[in-house]
């Protein structure tokens, strides 16, 4: 979607345009392999999701049959869905504002080009380079019973506070949220830095003449200018958090302990593969999809440019 918003209107070389169009009619054939490939392997499965969502399908090897809206009915009476909805909301409401506001401030900070900003940039890049499974294993080790956090607590004499962070019902969700923030903050900050570097210094200078400090320059000058971009990155982060949590949960907690880290995205995976109920899994996927669209529309409205 951002591509649509951002695609610059590139002036096509003027003169040959009309001639070019008639002559280039056959050219579109060049795009066919890519489009067909893309439709078969990406759009196709997505459409299939809407069909499977209305099926009774126990496992991938089991026979499937349509059961109308039965899966949808089941949704409303299902405790697990309610818990997952709550967990998803907590995960989102805590991590999204922290990541977005923090990253924006980080981006502004990096652009001040204070001593050390180059090395900081390199460090902030790290989460963008590590794979999900490496990140998962890293945190399994960092947060494990004898992992980095507990060893560190021991070192400073706070050993009695050590716990198996991912297996502790009180700490599993906060751990997941921290990992989400850890992995999202730095790279989003770099993206903001790239956007904010396009703001002319003269504008800041004018604000300084009026006595603005950094806080005011950040939120009264830079933010209004980058507002639509803020919205775009918020949408992306929203989608990643909403849909993407399953992978990290699979590696870290598998929804547990109990149901304490079971998000909607995790349920899609769980009913898809761990305790197969494929039709139901896709019904939840449908809910996720609707939540995704609704969220995008809301975020878009909130951050619509107002100038």
């Amino acid at each position, binding site marked *: 979607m951002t591509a649509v918003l951002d695609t610059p209107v590139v002036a096509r070389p003027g003169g040959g345009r009309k001639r*070019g169009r008639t002559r280039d009619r056959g050219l579109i054939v060049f795009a066919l392999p*890519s489009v067909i490939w893309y439709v078969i392997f990406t759009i196709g499965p997505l459409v299939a*999701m809407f069909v499977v969502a209305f099926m009774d399908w126990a496992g991938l090897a089991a026979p499937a049959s349509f059961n109308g809206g039965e899966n949808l009915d089941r949704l409303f009476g299902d405790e697990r869905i309610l818990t997952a909805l709550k967990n998803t909301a907590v995960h989102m409401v805590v991590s999204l504002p922290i990541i977005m506001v923090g990253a924006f401030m980080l981006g502004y900070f990096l652009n001040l080009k204070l001593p050390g900003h180059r090395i900081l940039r390199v460090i902030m890049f790290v989460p963008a380079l590590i794979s999900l499974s490496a990140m998962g294993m890293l945190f399994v080790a960092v947060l494990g019973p004898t992992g980095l956090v507990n060893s560190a607590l021991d070192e400073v004499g706070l050993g009695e506070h050590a716990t198996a962070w991912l297996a502790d019902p009180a700490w599993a969700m906060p751990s997941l949220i921290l990992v989400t923030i850890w992995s999202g903050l730095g790279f989003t900050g770099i993206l903001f830095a790239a956007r904010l570097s396009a703001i002319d210094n003269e504008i800041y200078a004018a604000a300084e003449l009026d006595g603005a400090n950094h806080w005011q320059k950040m939120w009264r000058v830079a933010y209004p200018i980058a507002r639509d971009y803020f919205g775009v990155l918020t949408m992306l982060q929203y989608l990643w958090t909403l849909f993407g949590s399953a992978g990290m949960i699979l590696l870290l907690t598998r929804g547990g302990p109990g149901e304490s880290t079971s998000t909607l995205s995790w349920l899609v995976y769980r009913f898809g593969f761990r305790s197969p109920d494929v039709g139901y899994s896709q019904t939840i996927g449908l809910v996720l999809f609707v939540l995704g669209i609704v969220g995008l529309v809301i975020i878009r409205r909130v951050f619509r440019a107002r100038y």
Partner: protein
Amino acid sequence: MDNRAPRPAVPAPRGRRRKGPNRFTPGLLGSYALVLVYALTLVLPLYWLFISAFKSQLDAVDAPFAPTFSSGFDNLTRVWDLLNLGDAMVNSLYITAASLVVTLVIAIPAAYALARSQGRIATLFERIYAMGFLIPGFAALVPTLLLAIQLGMFHTREFMILYLPASAQPLAVILLTQFMRTVPQELEESATIDGAGRFRVLRSIYLPLTMPGIATISILNFISFWNDYLYTLVIVGPNAKVRTLQVALPTLQGNQGITDYALVCAGTLISVLPVFLVYAVLNRRMENALVQGALKG
């Protein structure tokens, strides 16, 4: 980022002086401290990961921050054999390289076509790609698996080589199209007059002139293909013969959890090394690629 051309209108010394009064306010120092704390949370686990990979299981717990190097390369060779990482590395390379080739082979002509035609079909195609940004990959995981089964390609690496390029098309085509639009059409016209066909024009004019764009999408897709976890896990599966590095690594965890973090660290280190090596060589390029990719995606 930093390599932009300096703005001649604002002489540097003046700019610095103007920043002067604001430079070290308490608020700024506080922010600096916070940024350093965050940076530390990024660096410390990586440092710990690195040193733990080379020490004994006992040391990893007792002296978490000391680089004791007490077991040398033991952990690395042990995890290499245990998880059969040699095969995993080959499988990862095979899937990544082949997917990258397919991605480029279908995306380059498509971008050329979209950059040079303005018909309704071209607009429609661009819309279809734009939809791709709305669809988070994970959404269609189960149906994609069903497709793999339908095609008789369940548990094969080759299905990933079909799927990954498809998932990469929107970003690759849209980014490349923008690069291709900057190629002056006059060049193409004069080549056509000299008798060059379309493939010739694409190969001799567009390819060399859009190399930076091709490099960008290659880097982006190298990272995302190499790092792919969920799809590869579900479609290729954990069979040691075909699984990739990313799928092999978490099998260390087993069912009752793990206690040998030194081994986990060694495995994780091996899996992140290739991307970090490429980053060490291409860092500026890679940063720009990731920023551009995110801007469009």
